[in-house]
């Protein structure tokens, strides 16, 4: 087993994490580096398409059958995490139903960027993983958001009845989330990858595989800038969410890792499932919550998810979850 400190260092000195750190620094120094919207749209369209496509090709290679258990396990995670997060945030944090539901949905959903950084980490320490895991982000992105909105509706019906707010139509929200850019690109590119298979991959390998890590590193610069600006907003809103943003991912990683062990994944695959469970959404969930729960405070859910959990996972979480994966897989043997 590799030394924990060495691994942490490998992670910290990777271009991906260093560019993220540079982004944090840029905000601290109040430097004037702004990515035009279209630039980050381009990189994020690219990253989503690439990861979905890779996942689809890998599923085609592995066969749908060998994938089912893992997929079901990961959906279960997405359904479970928002439920207990919601109650934690209500009881311990004393948050309003809308705020609690919005945050819970973020943590049940996933962060594609964190996932990619973890995959980069694994490949830099030469740890293999089941290629079809690249298909999971597409699948785990949405269920939690739906669950969170159900919780919000229940809580409000339970409480004050004379609400002036129009009832949320869950069907409509589900449709909106499923048809959001991230989910469509991830799922769509996965379908393309699945149909075209390794033969199709050969023709576009240079684009979707070779330059991927570089594009990701440039994107991390911007994610760092965003994370730093969100953490600022959170500072105004108290210490509880800071703790929540660090402890929840570790606990969720544990659940993800146990699911991975249970599904018989390799160390690499188990780590990645842990990372997915630990990560929290930064695009799909915020957009869905803003529309469905307009009274929830964006500073809270963005602050916790993007300001705290994203940097924590990238900087500390990934090597920790890798160690946890090794520990639990060894335990079982």
């Amino acid at each position, binding site marked *: 087993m590799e030394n924990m400190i060495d691994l942490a260092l490998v992670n910290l000195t990777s271009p991906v994490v260093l560019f993220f750190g540079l982004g944090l620094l840029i905000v601290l120094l109040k430097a004037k580096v*702004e*990515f*035009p*919207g*279209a*630039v*980050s*749209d381009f990189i*994020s369209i690219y990253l989503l398409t690439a990861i979905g496509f890779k996942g689809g090709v890998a599923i085609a290679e592995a066969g749908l059958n060998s994938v089912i258990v893992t997929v079901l396990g990961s959906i279960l995670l997405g359904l479970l995490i928002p439920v207990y997060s919601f109650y934690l945030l209500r009881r311990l944090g004393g948050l309003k139903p809308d705020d609690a539901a919005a945050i819970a949905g973020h943590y049940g959903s996933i962060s594609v960027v964190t996932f990619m950084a973890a995959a980069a980490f694994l490949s830099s320490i030469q740890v293999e993983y089941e290629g079809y895991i690249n298909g999971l982000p597409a699948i785990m992105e949405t269920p939690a958001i739906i669950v969170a909105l159900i919780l919000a509706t229940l809580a409000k019906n339970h409480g004050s009845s004379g609400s*002036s*707010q*129009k009832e949320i139509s869950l069907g409509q929200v589900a449709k909106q989330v499923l048809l*959001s*850019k991230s989910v469509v690109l991830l799922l769509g590119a996965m379908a393309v990858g699945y149909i075209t298979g390794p033969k199709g991959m050969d023709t576009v390998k240079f684009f979707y595989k070779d330059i991927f890590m570089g594009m990701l590193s440039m*994107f991390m610069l*911007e*994610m760092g*800038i*965003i994370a730093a*600006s969100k953490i600022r*907003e959170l500072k105004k809103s108290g210490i509880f969410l800071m703790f929540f943003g660090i402890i929840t991912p570790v606990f969720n990683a544990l659940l993800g890792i146990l699911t991975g062990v249970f599904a018989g994944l390799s160390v690499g695959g188990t780590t990645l499932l842990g990372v997915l469970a630990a990560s929290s959404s*930064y*695009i799909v969930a*915020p*957009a869905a919550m*803003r*529309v469905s729960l*307009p*009274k929830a405070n*964006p500073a809270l859910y*963005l602050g916790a998810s*993007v300001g705290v959990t994203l940097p924590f996972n990238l900087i500390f979480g990934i090597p920790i979850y890798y160690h946890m994966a090794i520990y639990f897989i060894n335990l079982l043997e």
Partner: protein
Amino acid sequence: MFFDKKRISIIVEEVYRDEVVKLLEESGASGFTVYKDIYGKGKSGVRGKYGGLSEISSNIEIVSITGPEVADRSLRGLTTLINKGVVLIVHMTDVKVIRNEYFN
């Protein structure tokens, strides 16, 4: 030669675009124009300066030129939306147009 109309401007987060557009159309507006990728500062701090999360963090401006009745209906609808918690920055200007029938 000129006809008096109202120009309604609504600055709002991009996620609410469809909601506002629906409202305008239901109020009878014959058209609208959207200005993308703007940013600004107001009571809720700086917004829209960074991309990436553009769907959630960036502002748009929706402008519609309408007759006085449609303007009235639209503004009443927008007030309801504001009360629902959606932050809208609305203003209205008197303008003149050449083709009366083009703008309801």
